[in-house]
């Protein structure tokens, strides 16, 4: 609890000071600054200006030094008694609607740990990779095919691969594709982890179908720019299937992580983990906070 005193209280309080010492005004910093500037100004005018600057600077230094040594020069200012009002007209504070039994300051208690999302994302990544490679083996006849295509997103060398080389192993493409795949999957997983509890009704539907559909639509529109090689070789049915596989696996893994409150009757504020004052009677030790 913050405390501030009115001036009268200060006056009444036996330990409160009647007057306060503040640093005394002094001209020396100004003199030093002026001398310093003249010192430089001499370079663009004449040397005598620099000489004057040097003299002023030395004087400023000495003056300043004597201002703080042996002790700092202060002057005394009497306290002017004043009536400071700290008050408000706005007396009523509204509350967010929360479930009746959730009498907590921090809402809600149960949310996914961030790691849950990442785990889900990585699991989804595996599922997606399995499907993509399956596609490579079944349809294209080489497990490296989808990997080379993915790498072309960043790696312009891959763009230059002829049709034949697309089917063979390239260490650089492989590394790039792997890193890219893992990073994006982890990020998307994190996003799922954060958003699923907010839209709690059917996590798997949301994460497994709606999100992949949105995502695929997005990719569909931008792929030509981001990865033209992939765009020209893509099989959209398989692509969407692998997105859905990602979503479902990620959703399941996230949902498994901790048993969270998914009651849909909870207000959005709680599902979104909004931090706000609760409806509670004051805590006993409320005074010291933290």
């Amino acid at each position, binding site marked *: 609890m913050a405390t501030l*005193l009115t001036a009268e209280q200060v006056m009444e*309080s036996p330990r*409160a000071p009647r007057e306060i010492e503040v640093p005394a005004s002094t001209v020396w910093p100004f003199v030093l600054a002026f001398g310093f500037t003249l010192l430089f100004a001499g370079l663009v005018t004449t040397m005598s200006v620099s000489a004057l600057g040097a003299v002023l600077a030395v004087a400023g230094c000495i003056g300043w030094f004597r201002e703080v040594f*042996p002790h700092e020069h202060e002057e005394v200012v009497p306290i002017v008694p004043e009536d400071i009002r*700290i008050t408000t007209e706005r007396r009523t504070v509204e509350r967010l609607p929360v479930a009746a039994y959730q009498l907590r300051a921090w809402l809600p208690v149960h949310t996914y740990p961030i790691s849950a999302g990442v785990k889900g994302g990585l699991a989804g990544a595996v599922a997606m990779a399995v499907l993509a490679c399956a596609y490579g083996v079944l349809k294209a006849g080489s497990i490296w095919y989808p990997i080379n295509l993915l790498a072309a997103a960043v790696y312009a060398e891959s763009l230059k691969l002829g049709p034949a080389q697309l089917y063979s192993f390239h260490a650089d493409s492989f590394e790039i594709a792997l890193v890219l795949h893992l990073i994006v999957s982890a990020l998307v997983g994190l996003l799922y982890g954060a958003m699923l509890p907010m839209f709690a009704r059917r996590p798997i539907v949301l994460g497994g179908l709606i999100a992949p559909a949105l995502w695929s639509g997005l990719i569909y529109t931008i792929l030509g720019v981001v990865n033209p090689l992939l765009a020209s070789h893509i099989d959209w049915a398989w692509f969407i299937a692998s997105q859905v596989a990602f979503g479902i696996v990620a959703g399941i893994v996230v949902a498994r992580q901790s048993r969270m409150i998914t009651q849909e009757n909870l207000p959005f504020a709680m599902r979104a983990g909004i931090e706000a004052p609760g409806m509670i009677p004051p805590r006993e030790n409320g005074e010291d906070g933290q």
Partner: protein
Amino acid sequence: MSAMANSYPQAPANWALPDRGKVAMAGLIIAESAIFTIFVVAYLFYVGKSLTGPSPREVLETPIFYTICLLSSSLTVHLAAKSLARDRVGAFLGLWVLTIVLGGAFMYGTAQEWHRLIYEHGLTISTNLFGTTYYSLVGLHAFHVTAGLLMLSMVAIFALVGRVGVQHSRRVEVLSMYWHFVDAVWVVVFTVVYVVGR
């Protein structure tokens, strides 16, 4: 108004904040480090890019002895500050003066090296890129050593007339922070100029 506390506020019992002198010196050191970094980068960038001689390999000699002087002055200044904190003013004064002597020796070394470069090898700041970067970097450091020596000497004078006591120990510590910094910079400058730059 009912909100007003009606007792004089009590500060939290363990309310301690860092010393402002030290924080400020740390800030200054950060800023100075950035300045030195730029000069060091320029030096390294131009290594071997001079269009004319002389080159560092031809003219530089490694100043081992003076380097040792400067580095050991870090130790003496530390011990001096410690002595003052324990109120042993005599020891403080001795060590402090020793620090100044060591720093002075270093400056003497630099002066000698410059004299040799200028008069024996004709290398000045405008000779070539090496000259420009060398004198700037080493000169910037020498400038800092000189400034440090001036401040150290001032304290020494006050100490000699008996005006320095344990109550000034904090200020002296701040000054010694600066001196350590100047030494640390020398390690970098030394490496860059006399090891990497050749």
